[in-house]
């Protein structure tokens, strides 16, 4: 027999002293890499996303859309690399969100955006202010939340303490953004007294001007004298409330009017603009206090590439050091999020799973090859993984659930090469035809080349998954890369380390000297009994094929019968979820707080909930999901977020998704009682989307779109399993439009701007400067405003005055400074606030969103269900709306609807995986043609691929699991494994036939000889996958590998030899009768 590459390699290393050294070195670098690679939970995703805030004061949404949003969108879509452009045109400003393709360089994207924007700023209408650009990235998601809460301290004091801690934390290396959510800032409030203002003839505008001018200080230059320079400075900054109070704002008679004469100056907390409370719930640790307390949350983000768990530990120890100094007694600091700890935990759980898989596989191998054989296999796994981890480290991957999953996934596969080699060496040692060394090398030569081929078929199977595009790409790509690398290393280990180990560990059994005869082995007898009848009788053979065909058809039929449902990814078992409450627009902060509190009071009683925190008027610390959904903009008075922290998943039976499902109804009932809408938001297992179900409604006009959206929303609500239905259309909100009587204003010498400014200052307040104090970390704003009690109704506006600008305006004969009551100049019109206009890729769109839970968990089925109902909807014009699935509508002249949300990603993933699978089949075919130099043989080998479906689909049905993206990955990988089994079988048949054995005997012999390695390798895959069965996300993969592996191995061992026999019969012996 010729020596192949395998034999040559083995010969070099089997007795080399360098082999053990290489093995030890690989192990050491692997261990080092494991500890040096940053750990995090989610894979690194680079999706550059930029929010552009473009103020256009005074403009209505329609105007903002036409003049700002649309032109900007048009220019932005020109930028290469831009995937989507979204915009929202609201009264007074436009929000344009640009999303680049996954993997685009963030910095370069910003530069491109900036230059494009600059190029087009001259086309903006007058009045548009300079846009604010904010890059949104995954590293903005806080990894650590610390909640400061207290029985005795108020929100203002809490915020002061949190600010002091934040300042200290910023000194830590590698720390990202530190933010404070909730609490009240210190502010100098200048509460205007309308009566006094009128009495002293002072206007709010005048006050603002005087404060701004009085709060100034600058270096004026220097004097040079006597060989010295003396710096001259002038002015003085305002440093205290007293100084502000003593500013002269006007003259009354002959005496100055101080600010304190016309306003109350309060140095203290700002007006309440948020409610943030913390409380322990039913599953709180023992000794926790009941009730809920004012809270402030300090959020800590990490820098790009940093290790979340290291940072979290550093921050926590720093915070411990600050107790009693920056954190006064009476304030409790509770860790309400620690992604560092969860990441570490996840990583170590996965490593533990990895270890279990390796041990399980070793035990299986032990049954067949004895403990020495299993030791050989056991030693090869750590070396393979060590090298793979090293490559992860070198390629800047982090250890996250995807990269580690790749390792678990291949555990069953990487041992295969070693198993095949060790098994064959074992077999040859047992045969005792040659001296030990010679036997080993012969054994390696015999299986070496098919092993190399088999390894490449498996790599060919998984590698095309790299091409999964879109948001799912980063979740997928580390998998094929990791798995392929591990396969290559496992091959090297099998060819270098395994022979060395086998040669030393495997024993040739002493004693029986009889000649090895294959026909006496149990395997031969078994296969002779099974295969012979089929080989001899064509009828039986066809019946057998028919049965297999029926099984396959039956298995596939389970999918259209909905016995097995498709879903992209199932929910993971997390330790948190959020409740998002949206009250009708125009709801007061207190009313929203009341609903949030009531919902929280209910959530508190749920046995698995450990603590909760509600945020009203400010957003809860975001997660990756919130980032994509723009939850960081949830700062209006009608919005509340409740962060629900569950007890650790080890301490509860229910999965987080089940808890979320359980509480949904009751929480929604509470919100509904106040006309609000509550949603339960779970952390999605894969890439986040706007909502699981999204119907995008396009059409010729906003009214028609909204009308259709309302109907679609109704369809959503009526469909069982569809929950959390909402649409992005604001409720009607009353607005008072104060129309300036221009003629009268001109006659009085008052400009429209003056009126607008005065009103704004009175109602919203105006920051006229900051207090220059070095002790304060948060800037202390000086704000002019009417007191809370003085701005409750239109009548309160009656006492506000503006000053005439006098004859300088050339429109009045009044003297400058004359006080004109505002009520004289404006007329009140009551209106409904105009609704925001949404765009997606330049088209006007209205979104209807929902989630699925309960009756159906997979959006696709709900969509198919609703399609029929939507088609029946009546729209003006009398046509029917056919929901689109993949393409955008061709025109906006007619109403149309497109599905988006999770569907879009599901579609992309299954499309890309499907394409990958097709490519896989072609590559495998080519590889085998290259090896066997036949066009027919590869087809016979690939028969095993569809056979795996016989196991996979019923397997999912048995477990009651979804067929998910990970199931699909399992199926693809299995194709590689099954073809490898066929390669091993047919390769042996050909070797035997070349040695002159007749076809029938060669077929049976091959099945007999190869059964052990095939069962061993498939067994390793199956056993290695069992640990994954309990992980909600990887369950699908495990089922595919286990059931697909078992069934297709059994079927392969029978079907492939038979088909090969049929195909080769004609060329073998004419004596065998033709098929009747």
């Amino acid at each position, binding site marked *: 027999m010729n020596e192949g590459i395998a034999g040559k390699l083995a010969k070099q290393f089997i007795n080399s002293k360098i082999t053990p050294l290489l093995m030890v070195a690989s192990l050491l670098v692997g261990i080092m890499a494991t500890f040096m690679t940053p750990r995090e939970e989610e894979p690194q995703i680079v999706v550059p996303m930029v929010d552009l805030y473009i103020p256009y004061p005074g403009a209505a949404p329609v105007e903002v859309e036409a003049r700002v949003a649309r032109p900007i969108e048009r220019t932005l879509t020109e930028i290469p690399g831009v995937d989507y452009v979204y915009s929202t045109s609201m009264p007074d400003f436009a929000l344009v969100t640009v999303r680049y393709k996954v993997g685009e360089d963030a910095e370069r994207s910003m530069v491109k955006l900036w230059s494009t924007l600059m190029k087009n700023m001259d086309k903006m209408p007058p009045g548009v202010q300079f846009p604010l650009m904010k890059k949104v990235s995954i590293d903005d998601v806080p990894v650590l939340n610390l909640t400061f809460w207290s029985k005795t301290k*108020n*929100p*203002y*004091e809490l915020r002061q303490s949190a600010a002091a801690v934040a300042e200290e934390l910023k000194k830590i290396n590698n720390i990202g953004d530190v933010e404070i959510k909730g609490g*009240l800032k210190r502010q100098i409030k200048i509460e205007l007294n309308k009566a006094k203002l009128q009495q002293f003839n002072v206007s709010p505008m005048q006050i603002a001007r005087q404060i701004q001018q009085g709060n100034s200080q600058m270096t004026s230059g220097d004097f040079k004298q006597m060989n010295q320079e003396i710096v001259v400075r002038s002015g003085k900054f305002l440093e205290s409330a007293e100084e502000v109070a003593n500013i002269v704002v006007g003259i009354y008679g002959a005496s100055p009017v101080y600010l304190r004469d016309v306003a109350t100056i309060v140095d*203290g*907390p*700002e*007006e*309440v603009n948020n*409610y943030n409370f913390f409380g322990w719930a039913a599953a709180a640790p023992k000794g926790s206090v*009941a*009730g*809920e307390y*004012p809270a402030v949350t300090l959020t800590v983000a990490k820098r790009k590439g940093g290790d979340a768990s290291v940072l979290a530990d550093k921050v926590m120890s720093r915070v411990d050091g600050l107790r009693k100094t920056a954190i006064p007694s009476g304030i409790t600091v509770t860790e309400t999020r620690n992604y560092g700890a969860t990441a570490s935990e996840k990583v170590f759980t996965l490593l533990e799973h990895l270890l279990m898989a390796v041990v399980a596989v070793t035990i299986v191998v032990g049954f067949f090859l004895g403990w020495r054989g299993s030791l050989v296999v056991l030693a090869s796994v750590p070396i393979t993984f060590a090298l793979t981890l090293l490559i992860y480290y070198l390629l800047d991957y982090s250890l996250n659930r995807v990269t580690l999953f790749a390792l678990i996934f291949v555990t069953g596969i990487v041992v295969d090469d070693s198993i095949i080699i060790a098994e064959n060496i074992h077999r040859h040692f047992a045969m005792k035809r040659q001296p030990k060394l010679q036997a080993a090398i012969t054994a390696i030569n015999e299986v070496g080349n098919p092993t190399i081929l088999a390894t490449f078929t498996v790599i060919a199977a998984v590698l095309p998954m790299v091409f999964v595009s879109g948001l799912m790409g980063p979740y997928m790509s580390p998998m094929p890369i990791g798995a392929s690398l591990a396969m290559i290393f496992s091959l090297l280990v099998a060819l270098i380390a395994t022979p060395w180990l086998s040669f030393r560990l495997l024993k040739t059994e002493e004693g029986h000297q009889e000649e090895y005869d294959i026909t006496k082995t149990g395997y031969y007898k078994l296969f002779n009994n099974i295969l012979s009848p089929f080989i001899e009788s064509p009828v039986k053979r066809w019946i057998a094929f028919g049965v297999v065909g029926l099984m396959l058809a039956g298995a596939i039929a389970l999918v259209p019968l909905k016995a097995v449902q498709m879903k992209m990814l199932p929910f993971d078992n997390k330790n948190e979820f959020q409740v998002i409450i949206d009250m009708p627009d125009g709801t*007061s*902060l*207190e*009313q929203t*707080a*009341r609903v949030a*509190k009531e919902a929280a*009071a209910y959530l508190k009683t749920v046995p698995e909930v450990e603590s909760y925190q509600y945020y009203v008027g400010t957003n809860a610390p975001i997660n990756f999901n919130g980032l994509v959904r723009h939850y960081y903009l949830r700062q209006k008075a009608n919005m509340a977020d409740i962060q629900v922290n569950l007890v650790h998943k080890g301490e509860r039976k229910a999965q987080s998704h089940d808890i979320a499902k359980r509480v949904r109804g009751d929480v929604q009932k509470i919100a509904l009682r106040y006309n609000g809408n509550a949603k339960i938001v779970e952390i999605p297992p894969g890439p986040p989307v706007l909502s699981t179900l999204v119907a995008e409604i396009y059409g010729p006009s906003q009214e028609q779109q909204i009308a259709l959206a309302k109907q679609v929303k109704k369809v959503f609500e009526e469909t069982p399993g569809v929950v959390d239905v909402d649409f992005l259309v604001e409720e009607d909100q009353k607005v008072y439009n104060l129309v300036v009587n221009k003629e009268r204003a001109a006659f009085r010498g008052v400009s429209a701007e003056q009126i607008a400014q005065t009103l704004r200052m009175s109602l919203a307040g105006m920051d006229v400067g900051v207090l220059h104090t070095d002790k304060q970390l948060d800037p202390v704003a000086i704000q002019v405003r009417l007191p*809370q*009690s*003085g701005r*409750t*109704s239109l*009548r309160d506006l009656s006492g506000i005055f503006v000053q005439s600008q006098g004859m300088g305006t050339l429109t009045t004969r009044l003297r400058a400074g004359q006080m004109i009551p505002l009520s004289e100049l404006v007329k009140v019109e009551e209106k409904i606030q105009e609704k925001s206009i949404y765009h997606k890729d330049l088209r006007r769109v209205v979104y209807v969103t929902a989630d699925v839970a309960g009756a159906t968990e997979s959006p696709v089925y709900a969509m198919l269900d609703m399609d029929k109902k939507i088609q029946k909807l009546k729209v003006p014009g009398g046509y029917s709306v056919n929901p689109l699935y993949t393409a955008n509508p061709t025109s906006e002249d007619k109403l149309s609807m497109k599905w988006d949300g999770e569907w879009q990603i599901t579609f992309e993933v299954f499309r890309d995986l499907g394409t990958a699978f097709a490519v896989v089949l072609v590559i495998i075919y080519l590889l085998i043609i290259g090896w066997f130099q036949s066009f027919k043989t590869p087809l016979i080998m690939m028969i095993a691929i569809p056979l795996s479906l016989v196991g996979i689909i019923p397997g999912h049905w048995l477990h009651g699991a979804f067929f998910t993206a990970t199931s699909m990955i399992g199926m693809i990988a299995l194709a590689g494994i099954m073809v490898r089994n066929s390669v091993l079988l047919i390769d042996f048949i050909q070797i035997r036939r070349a040695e002159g054995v007749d076809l029938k005997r060669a077929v049976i012999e091959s099945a007999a000889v190869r059964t052990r390695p095939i069962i061993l390798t498939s067994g390793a895959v199956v056993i290695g996958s069992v640990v994954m069965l309990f992980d909600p996300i990887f369950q699908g993969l495990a089922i595919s590998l286990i059931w697909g592996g078992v069934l297709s191995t059994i079927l392969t061992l029978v079907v492939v030899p038979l088909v090969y026999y049929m195909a080769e019969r004609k060329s073998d012996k004419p004596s065998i009768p033709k098929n009747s």
Partner: protein
Amino acid sequence: MISLLPVALALLVSGCGGHEETPIIRVSPSVPVAVESIVPVRTNGEPGTRELLLVPATSVFRNGELAGVLVVGADHQISQRWIRTGVVLQGDIVVLGGLDKGELVVGKYNPSLGEGLTVIKSPNVTEEVQNK
């Protein structure tokens, strides 16, 4: 129906409670605690243009900038409610947000009354009938 009686009674004879010092009440969640007064949120003025929600000034407590009242629910349980307050009008505070008309609040705030306590109006305090 019986459980509704005290509510109805309170609605009927609401008003500001007596003005003597409130003794510290020993709390026990199971036993209903008697309080001097439970008053409904009232409105002044004609319904429509200039309607204002009012609660007695004594019912409002403060924690820094936050202002709250103790609301008595239909099940007689106390819950804290944060409110936004306006001007004071003759012993009453105008409520700008957080309360609905007709809701019952504890007329005189007592820090020992905690969330979730059951309260009833103490019978031995005479109430003046509110003139609307």
